[in-house]
């Protein structure tokens, strides 16, 4: 029914009333939206009708008219608390269930990296293609974006996909989607980010798989992200401490990604992208047990995009060591 309604709304000529549905979650979000709209319309009509009806039916007919007082009704109070409560609990559980789905990327998603800055979007593909304010993706494949900002808070928003996630300086956030329909869709920055906020827009181009392969082949790629990361790993001399055998000053980074790391201060932390980023830019924040806080910061030396490349390389080290590869 959601599909029929949205198709009807989209087919209206003239004023656009409804956005494109171009991701695997779009019709699910729309179904929930129609439920909410239904409840809203019902109660709006109910209240308007009652107010109008009472205003006319019980209009003052003479100046000395004095209606009987009605103190209230416990039954009615309970009724009009419990029915709305039931309706909103449906909204809550439905919304939370779908939110969980929208937030948890499938494990087989292809990972792309996004850096937002005033006022553009910079995107890196795993094979090394780079785009600005454009994102080419194939139909039907889950795409996961790992995102950060170089300056203020931005927000990555693709209305046709019904997904949005803030892009923050100083940390990674994630957003995933599976595009379902080829076409071009708006990419907006949704979080106010300064003067040219409304120009921080772009387009997401969804291609059929073959067209996508052609696009990949036709775009200058150079090194893959992993290769670039490996080069930077040498260039920044990371290897002198992290690959120097048993006496090295820093922990080996093989097989580190995705593991739990024991910290010098006690406790443990999951070595995800966010932890690796922090350890490059603020190395003394969470030092690995058994090592001294001697690493210098790479803040200002490595750009956010370079940090992402190094992380891509570090992740590949885990895969090469015979871990379960991420398919």
């Amino acid at each position: 029914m959601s599909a029929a309604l949205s198709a009807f709304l989209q087919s209206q000529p003239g004023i656009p009333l409804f956005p494109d549905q171009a991701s695997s979650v779009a019709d699910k979000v729309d179904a929930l939206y129609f439920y909410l709209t239904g409840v809203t319309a019902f109660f709006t009509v109910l209240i308007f009708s009652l107010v109008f009806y009472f205003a006319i039916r019980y209009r003052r007919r003479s100046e000395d008219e004095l209606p009987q007082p009605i103190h209230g009704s416990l039954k009615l109070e309970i009724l009009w608390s419990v029915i709305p409560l039931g309706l909103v609990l449906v909204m809550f559980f439905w919304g939370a269930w779908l939110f969980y789905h929208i937030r948890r990327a499938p494990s087989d998603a292809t990972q792309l990296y996004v850096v937002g800055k005033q006022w553009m979007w910079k995107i890196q593909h795993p094979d090394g293609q780079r785009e600005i304010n454009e994102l080419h993706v194939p139909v039907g494949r889950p795409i996961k974006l790992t995102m950060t900002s170089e300056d203020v808070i931005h927000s990555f928003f693709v209305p046709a996909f019904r997904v949005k996630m803030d892009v923050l300086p100083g940390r990674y956030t994630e957003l995933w989607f599976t595009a379902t329909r080829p076409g071009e869709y708006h990419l907006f920055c949704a979080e106010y980010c300064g003067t040219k906020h409304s120009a921080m827009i772009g387009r997401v181009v969804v291609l059929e798989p073959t067209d996508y392969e052609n696009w990949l082949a036709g775009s200058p790629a150079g090194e893959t992200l992993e290769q670039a990361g490996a080069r930077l790993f040498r260039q920044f001399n990371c290897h002198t401490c992290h690959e120097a055998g048993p006496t090295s000053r820093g922990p080996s980074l093989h097989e580190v990604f995705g593991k739990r790391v024991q910290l010098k201060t006690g406790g443990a932390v999951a070595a995800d992208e966010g932890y690796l980023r922090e350890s490059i830019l603020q190395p003394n924040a969470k030092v690995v047990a058994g090592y001294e806080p001697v690493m210098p910061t790479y803040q200002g030396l490595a750009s956010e995009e370079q940090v992402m490349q190094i992380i891509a390389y570090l992740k590949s080290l885990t895969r090469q060591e015979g871990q379960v590869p991420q398919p």
Partner: protein
Amino acid sequence: MPRVHYLNADYGIRSWLLTTDHKRIALLYLGSITLMFVLGGLFATAIRLELLTPAGDLFESENYNKLFTMHGVIMIFFFLIPSVPAVLGNFLVPMMIGARDLAFPRINLLSWYVYTVGGLFTLVAIAAGGVDTGWTFYTPYSSTYSNTNVMLTAVGVFITGFSSILTGFNFIITIHKMRAPGLTWFRLPLFIWAHYATSVIMILGTPVVAIAIALVGLERLFHIGIFDPKLGGDPVLFQHLFWFYSHPAVYIMILPSMGVISEIITCFSRKKVFGYSFIAFSSVAIALIGFLVWGHHMFVSSQSMYAGMVFSILSFLVAIPSAVKVFNWTATMYKGSVSYQSPMMYAMGFIGLFTMGGLTGLFLSTLATDVHLHDTYFVVAHFHYIMVGGAIMGYLGGIHYWWPKISGRMYPEPWARLAAWIIFIGFNLTFFPQFILGYLGMPRRYHAYPDEFQVLNVLSTAGASILAVGYAIPLIYLVWSLRYGRVAGPNPWGAKGLEWETASPPPTYNFPETPVVTEEAYEYYPKGAEAEVV
């Protein structure tokens, strides 16, 4: 008209600027916030004109950003928050409880001076070139990146916060200690319950936004790393602090208007309110639960998914007491004696628009739909239905209802009804299209936008021009009525409540002698008459 009343008891500018009479202070506030409303309205007009066309062709982006920032700052901190409490609350809280004045008259005057000083800082910030952070002051943009007058504006908002703290504190003590003999808690008009709940929020919430703004200042001036990650801070921390106040602040803006509506509906239905204690306690419930829902502004901010779920369900819970109020108001009209004088028109408009505003809030409490709708025009439409459709309709309803009491004169009723209709129609035409724009995905705070959104934006701007006419009309006839209006007499509406038992305008000390209360609120049906009818 009485020969001597609070308006002519004393003459000269000093008698106004040094007054400790709560009624005169209410009028000082009325003047100040009306000026601020006009200013904020001019900014709104400029915004709507820019959005007539998709290209950003009327203003530079930087100036457009300043316009919506200053519209928000002025309207929220300098109009909506003080509107009903500082004007109508100031005037009526003592009168409704049979007191001579508020508990601390000089602190009451101080609150107006604090408001004025805060307002001047903000006006100077505007004159010096404005500020472009959005009224939300999100970091690190506000603390590090913006090159506009953030500090002046922040100081203005910081200072003005203290005026609401002072007002809230004054109301709470007054309501506790100065009620007339016989006026028990459950005989209080619902207007008083609403103001009590509002005062609690003002006292508990405002210091937190003051702290948040002060921290932005520390980071901006001294580069102490609090919010900017480059300095070691956490940008999301600011959002937590800011919304911990600014979500409850929404209830500061709407609860007093709800109190106004309870008074008007009963008077013009000539009937006891339906479910008195449910309306009274729903105000308290809104005030308390309202403190626990701030995270619903942050579902896509990187806040934990599970925190989002907790904030989502709490936000749904706060919707229930609001729904209860709407049902009770509607039920009050049932078998009443309903007349359609202008205050009632505003009240009925409030019920309709607040219902829509509240219900569309559910879309934003629902996690999955909020992901799509967050920071789009849907949010803009939703909160304008609450703030303009709700709070301002309530404020205007209250001004029309108590104007005879405040001024001693009646305004021309046909004009007042016409204005109410124009405002209702103009409002809906302005903001309803924005719901559709929001679901289509148009982000808020966009200076330029894609072409396909133009038709709906043109409708919205057309509505805004009607709305502007609707707001201008009362401004004219209310001023006109001060001199030419028919003399109102003490109780032109045949209303219940202590404020109607004294002269209009009231004497400086409100009541010739302390009234004694022997009945519940809204006893339109005289005791004893019941037996005869049955």
